[in-house]
């Protein structure tokens, strides 16, 4: 059976628009694969590569890619990696689109380049398994070619031993009406305490985050999902659950978009700990707490099983995304710097409206929603109003909460954070005084020198 993919008509307009403007364009196909249907949600052109500024300072040169041959595999793969962070679970970079006049599939040079772009992308997306970069359901990626107002789509197996492109035909269909989405929401809560083991594990923030995300994945793997408080048949389609629930006012339900479903996850305690008492010297404790807000969107005919996979992917992908972003921005990977208490506050999730569903982005503490719009424009090629960004799904950490935790944690005769902050206070005042004295000296420097000169 020929693989069929459905895309909203807005995608066609997007392709037309770029084909009209430029000779060559490349970008990503974002969407969802379910057994019942494959849906494309969005096409996002790969931004133009900034040539490293060795030529002249300040002037960032944009290299215009004009043919398939000039495309950088690494650049497209990097785009896919960053876009994956913005996708809820169950959504993936499904492949690439190309707008060009040159032939892609029948031109050996171009097609081998296409294959190498896809292979490279696949490899990069596989580096961090917690990102779920490659859709686990398929080994194939889509290539959509728009040329002279015609659309040709093929499916290509990545890393295959087949010589040549090995492309299979795909039936790409534009639908006038945008697909309806079943939304599922939950808040996954963390509240874990780990010992700090300087001798055993070192003191890296990155390693600690790695441990957390691995543990979370193990817990999620075995956890049981309930929808609206009930355990559902895993093979039931989601829209069936709605119908089953509301047989009376089915009329109103059919016109309204489907209501969001509440997801609960229950983790059985299956310990993978060794069956012994471990005895460790620890230098403190790590408290990892807070929530990951999760909203996933599925084709209403998708099964409960598919929804469950999407929710679980979403939570892990979101954790991995923020940890990666946080660690990339870290200057010091030391879990225990000079201070007695150290906070690591990874960026929080905000929701970005795209059509009738939401993708996401992450805001560092202190960043305004406008910052998210930059990456939306750059990576998704979308213009969204700042007001449309939903920032309330998660809230930034309240530092007073930390202080309270501090006090809790340090009641046991150990170096209290109050002491630490008192010290900071004293140092602060001393520095301020010093600055004052120096500035007075500087201000009156000429007077003083004159006075000194007079004396001499």
């Amino acid at each position: 059976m020929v693989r069929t993919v459905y895309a909203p008509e807005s995608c066609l307009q997007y392709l037309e628009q770029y084909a009209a403007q430029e000779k060559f364009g490349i970008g990503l196909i974002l969407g969802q694969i379910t057994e019942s249907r494959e849906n494309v949600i969005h096409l996002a052109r790969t931004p133009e590569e900034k040539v490293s500024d060795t030529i002249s300072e300040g002037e960032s040169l944009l290299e215009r890619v004009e043919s398939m041959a000039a495309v950088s595999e690494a650049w497209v793969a990097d785009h896919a990696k960053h876009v994956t962070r913005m996708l809820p679970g169950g959504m993936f970079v499904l492949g690439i689109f190309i707008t060009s006049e040159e032939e892609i599939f029948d031109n050996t040079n171009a097609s081998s380049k296409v294959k190498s772009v896809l292979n490279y992308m696949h490899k990069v997306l596989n580096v961090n398994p917690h990102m779920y970069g490659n859709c686990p359901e398929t080994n194939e990626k889509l290539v959509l070619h728009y040329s002279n107002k015609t659309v040709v789509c093929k499916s290509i197996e990545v890393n295959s031993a087949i010589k040549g492109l090995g492309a299979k035909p795909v039936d790409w269909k534009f639908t006038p009406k945008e697909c309806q989405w079943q939304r599922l929401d939950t808040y996954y809560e963390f509240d874990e305490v780990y010992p700090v083991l300087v001798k055993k594990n070192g003191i890296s923030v990155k390693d600690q985050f790695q441990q957390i995300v691995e543990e979370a994945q193990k817990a999620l793997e075995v956890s049981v999902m309930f929808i609206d408080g009930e355990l559902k048949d895993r093979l039931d389609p989601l829209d069936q659950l709605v119908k089953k629930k509301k047989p009376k006012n089915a009329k109103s339900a059919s016109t309204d978009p489907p209501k969001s479903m509440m997801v609960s996850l229950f983790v059985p305690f299956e310990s993978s700990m060794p069956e012994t008492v471990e005895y460790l010297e620890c230098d403190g404790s790590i408290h990892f707490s807070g929530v990951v807000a999760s909203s996933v969107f599925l084709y209403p005919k998708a099964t409960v099983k598919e929804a469950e996979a999407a929710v679980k992917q979403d939570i892990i992908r979101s954790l991995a995304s923020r940890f990666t972003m946080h660690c990339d921005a870290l200057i010091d990977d030391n879990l225990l710097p000079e201070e007695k208490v150290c906070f690591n506050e990874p960026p929080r999730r905000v929701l970005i409206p795209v059509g009738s569903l939401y993708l996401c982005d992450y805001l560092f503490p202190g960043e305004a929603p406008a910052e998210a719009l930059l990456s939306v424009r750059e990576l998704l090629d979308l213009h969204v109003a700042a007001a449309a960004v939903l920032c309330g799904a998660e809230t930034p950490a309240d530092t007073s909460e930390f202080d309270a935790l501090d006090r809790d944690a340090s009641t046991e005769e150990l170096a209290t954070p109050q002491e630490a902050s008192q010290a900071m206070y004293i140092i602060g005042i001393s520095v301020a005084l010093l600055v004052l004295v120096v500035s007075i000296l500087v201000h009156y420097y000429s007077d003083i020198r004159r006075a000194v000169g007079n004396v001499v």
Partner: protein
Amino acid sequence: MSPRLKISSHVIERLSKVESDESTGCLYGLMYDGTLLVVGLSLELFEDDKNTYKQLLLNLPTEVELCGVIKFGDSLTMDNQLKDILKDVDITDNPLVIIINKEKDMKAHFLVHDKFEETQYEVLSAAEIQKQFLYVRLNTVLPLRCEATIAGVKNVMQNKRKKIASGQVSFHVQGTSVYMFGVASDVALTGISNDATVSELVDSLSPEQPAKKKKQSSNTVEIVPVNLVMKSTRDILSEKLVKTAVKMMTTQRKPAFCISMPLRVDTLAMIHRSTKLLELYSVLVEATCRALRLLETGLVEQLGQEGIGDGAGLRLPETFHFLPQELGHFLTRVVPKGIPDESMESERRALHELLNLPTDRPLFRRGNAHADNHGGRLINPHEAIPSQPRSDSVVALVRGRYAYHHYLQDGAADDGWGCAYRSMQTIFSWFRYQGYTTVDIPTHRDIQKCLVDIGDKPSSFVGSKQWIGSTEVMFCLETLLGVQSRIIFANTGAEMSLYAPELVHHFQKHGSPIMIGGGVLAHTIIGVDYNPATSEARYLILDPHYTGAEDLTTVVNKGWCGWKNGDFWNKTAHYNLCLPQTKPCV
């Protein structure tokens, strides 16, 4: 209105055996349907000011609570100690006071508005209690990480109990889609109707014919396995939802020693079959908390011991459930992993005394623990034989559990030569189940090797298909278990009845299975029925020559386990009997 009173026949029996008239006792029971059922007792010795009953409660199944006191003597006058105990009775407003005088006459009284009201009671047999009650067994593993100090353990355990009681946990009945939720969820129960009872749940669990099931449940306690799942998500509509994004706080402290271990929670609750599943949630929360307290006691005890003080020698606490025939109810113990039973004898002896149990046999060693998994073997098949009581004869049976070992088990093609080996294995299993040993059941090869090692057989014996007899069984028991045996020699099968009184004595005193061999095939004798007037005897035989599947009905109906008359023995062949002896110990 004071409750109706029922008392377990085990309690009556043990009360009748109390020697001292000085001591006082506590009674434990549970309430159901306006009835107080007394299931257990302990003797309160008032040693070193510890309220032993408070500690003992942690060892009892959840729902069983302190319900009253026993006073030995004639009068109802209460001293302060008894009054204090009565104040701790929470399960009913009308604590029970049983007085027993020197003539062992027993009277039960409810304390109603500070006045004693004598009350009638009904005695419930063990079988009747099993018919009405079942056990719910909750298993889970909680990771435990804390400072290696008593305060550290106590603190973290208290937090765990708080978390369990917070409503965030749910319970899942294994093998079903039945989940019970706490207050943190909108629904209390899914997978079954809201007014379903425990009994209905059990019926839906086993698709067997109800008639067949009843036969099974007459000699086995019914246990419903439940596990614990923790709700890791927050409901969006919940008022308590704090939407703070994930964050990490690291607090540096002076280096200190920490322990990290998987805490295995394994706990029982005793439930009346008519209990609604909706009511089970709070029982299971209580059961989990009770188990955590028991585990905490075990850990704190270890930390308090010398040499372990810093936590380095801390051992994993392991939970065992015991259901001794003499006790009639479950008792749960937590023992440190790897500490041999032999070095914990004084604690067990104290427990035997506290519960007024015989001190001549182990009841609370690891081997005594209740087990559901017997490697597929049949346990005590003779219990399925309908009893035919005869008033004029003495019946003495094997005491406690044994496993039926017979031909072709474990893939060994031993038909034709392995019967005595199998009989020996059955005896060995009995010693394991009675807690005398933790040594694994020896294979045919192990037995042969043992006989070669002690010089009884040439080395070519190992791997052969040669028979062994009663003396070889005796040698092996002595070598592998340190068990001494008596050998009885019967010149002919006709002589066997002469030894029947000795067999009666053996079963009464030692209770171990007897291996019989000699000129003909080997068998295991697990009971004897002797009529002193006529000197006639019947023998309960467990036949190791059975080659079929582990099917109780076949084994019993076809006589592979059954009563045999004197003519079972060959009149012309000679017989050797190996009677394994036990030593008094706990």
